[in-house]
């Protein structure tokens, strides 16, 4: 091969690379139009290569067409390969000579091998490298040499001997080099396409997010805003970019400084801040913000904003509703307590005193009759009298029990400590659980609401112990100082199980907690180290009732 032909062919192949790259940038790579243009470019290149061919003997020429057409199939696929092959064949036939048909065979086989190579490298990525390309070139040109045997006149073997070495070294090497350039271009194009697709996906997320998203910088400027952010703030993106962070935050919101400090410190923040729409109306927003660094080194911050006005309104409504029901429950409880107090007093004071009076009268008559004990006729009367006295005793005991169950008079008349001790005694009688009550000698007088709350909590706690705890002992301890009074009910039972919040036990516990809350107290359920439960209620000693 002459030096001029070699230089010409190299120039042609480099031009081919440039043209391939230009077409793929302009038209993409996979469209039918692009493939058609590739076919024309490769075909034209093959034709130009044949124009500067090296004539071995009249009618037998060598050039770079096999390389070009092979690469057309390998990089452009069937359409590109076919067009390039047809153009090259047409020109070769026009050139004529004894090797014309053999030359066409070389062109066809190169195109087919190229298309095959394309399929194979789709399956095995290892083929997409310089060694793979060299191997491909080797096969194309080995087949080319085989075609030489088809030359008319039996001159094939002589031709092979004279060109085998350059054909099996130079042309595969050319295939490898040009293929390498095309491969690099293909990879760049694919990476570019993936990047474009990826960016499109992220942009779609940004554009279609139901939360407002701002791309900002740590110093407070806004670089980009999505449509939802624009809608939230009532400003377009350009306007947001102009006003920056200062234009969208509520300067009176004290959380803001904390939020920014937190983000500076930890690189992230999530919480609620107040933001401002165009026109100055502010709204509560849930904001999450993260500081990140671009590959360029520049620091950015993202700010995802969600308007929580509706949720806040709903929460506020729920809170108000809860307060209303709490007040209602407290009111009902107060009325119930007043009713119990009234009934207890009526039963105890009116019925109880009447019965006491009757009992005293019966006793007096009995004593008077004792002075006439000698008269046996009186015996039946005395017996009836004693029986009536016993009936009255039973009635008195019943009346006292009913009154105490409604509300022990002790609580109002003698104070909480003695009422607790009395209730401890009743607990022992009623449930059979020994109950120790420790109260200080000197407890400051408590507001009636506080005393009532503590007493009722004790009753509920004792009932719970009796029902569920399987305890064998209970301690009740009241401690008080000037600021607070604390009541503890400790049992040695099996502890409290977490139960269904709507179960009677849970409602009982809720009732206890509510009673404590109404007098601004706290109720805690603690696990006792040795087993059992501690119910602890702490109430400010002088608190006005929470109602």
């Amino acid at each position: 091969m002459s030096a001029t032909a070699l230089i010409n062919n190299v120039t042609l192949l480099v031009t081919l690379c440039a043209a391939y790259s230009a077409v793929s940038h302009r038209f993409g790579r996979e469209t039918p139009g692009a493939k058609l243009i590739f076919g024309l470019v490769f075909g034209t290149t093959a034709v130009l290569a044949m124009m500067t061919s090296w004539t071995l003997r009249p009618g037998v020429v060598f050039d770079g067409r096999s390389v070009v057409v092979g690469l057309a199939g390998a990089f452009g696929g069937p359409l590109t390969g076919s067009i390039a092959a047809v153009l090259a064949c047409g020109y070769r036939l026009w050139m004529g000579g004894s090797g014309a048909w053999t030359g066409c065979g070389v062109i066809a086989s190169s195109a087919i091998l190229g298309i095959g190579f394309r399929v194979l490298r789709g399956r095995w990525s290892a083929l997409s490298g310089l060694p793979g390309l060299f191997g491909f070139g080797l096969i194309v040109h080995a087949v080319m040499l085989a075609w030489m045997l088809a030359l008319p006149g039996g001159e094939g073997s002589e031709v092979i001997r004279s060109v085998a070495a350059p054909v099996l070294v130079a042309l595969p090497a050319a295939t490898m080099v040009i293929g390498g350039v095309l491969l690099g271009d293909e990879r760049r194009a694919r990476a570019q396409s993936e990047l474009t697709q990826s960016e499109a996906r992220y942009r779609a997320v940004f554009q279609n997010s139901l939360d407002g998203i701002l791309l900002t910088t740590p110093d407070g400027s806004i670089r980009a805003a999505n449509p939802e952010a624009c809608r939230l703030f009532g400003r377009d993106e350009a306007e947001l970019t102009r006003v920056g962070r200062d234009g969208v935050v509520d300067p009176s919101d004290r959380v803001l400084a904390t939020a920014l400090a937190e983000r500076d410190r930890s690189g992230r923040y999530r919480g609620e801040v107040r933001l401002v729409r165009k026109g100055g109306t502010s709204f509560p927003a849930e904001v999450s913000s993260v500081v990140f660094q671009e590959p360029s080194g520049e620091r950015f911050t993202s700010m995802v904003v969600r308007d929580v006005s509706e949720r806040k309104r709903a929460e506020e409504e729920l809170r108000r509703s809860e307060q209303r029901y709490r007040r209602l429950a407290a009111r009902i409880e107060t009325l119930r307590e007043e009713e119990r107090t009234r009934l207890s007093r009526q039963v105890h004071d009116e019925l109880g005193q009447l019965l006491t009076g009757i009992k005293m009268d019966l006793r007096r008559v009995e004593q008077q009759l004792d002075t006439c004990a000698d008269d046996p006729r009186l015996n039946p009367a005395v017996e009836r009298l004693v029986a009536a006295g016993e009936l009255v005793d039973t009635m008195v005991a019943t009346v006292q029990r009913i009154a105490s169950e409604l509300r022990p008079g002790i609580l109002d008349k003698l104070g909480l400590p003695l009422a607790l001790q009395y209730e401890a005694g009743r607990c022992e009688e009623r449930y059979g659980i020994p109950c120790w009550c420790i109260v200080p000698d000197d407890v400051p007088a408590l507001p009636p609401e506080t005393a009532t709350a503590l007493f009722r909590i004790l009753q509920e706690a004792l009932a719970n112990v009796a029902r569920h705890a399987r305890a064998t002992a209970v301690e009740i301890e009241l401690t008080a100082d000037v600021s607070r009074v604390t009541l503890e009910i400790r049992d040695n039972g099996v502890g409290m199980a977490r139960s269904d919040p709507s179960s009677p036990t849970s409602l009982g516990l809720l009732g206890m907690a509510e009673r404590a809350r109404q007098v601004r107290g706290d109720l805690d359920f603690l696990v006792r180290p040795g087993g059992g439960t501690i119910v602890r209620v702490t109430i400010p000693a002088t608190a006005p009732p929470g109602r």
Partner: protein
Amino acid sequence: MPRAVRDETTARRSLRLLIVEDSAIVSTRLVAAVEGFAGIASVDVARDGAEAQQAFGGAGPDVVLLDLQLPDISGLDLLRRYKVLHPAGTVLVLTSFAFAQLRARCQALGADGFFDKVFEFDRAIEVIRHLGQAAVTGPEGATL
């Protein structure tokens, strides 16, 4: 204050009894029960804490039969005040809530007797009878 019984002539030395009880039904019967006891010079009735405190003034009663449940103040407070004013006086507590801790509390405050209003009132009356007798004849003449 209703004055139930006054007999200035019966005794060489006699006791003034105060019954603190808000129920007229009960106090009337208590007064009737102690009526005519030797050594009881007078029996007064106080219907609430205020009347009782008024009666504690001056020489005050020698014996107080005290109900703990009063409409205005706690009977325990009344017991404490009486004992401060008249340490040598006798207080007999008569209550519907006769349980051990209350008995201990009353004793700690200086009560001399503690009785269930329904089941033990006649024992309280008996104690008053003995106190009256002792006032007339000296301690050796009466036994509690």
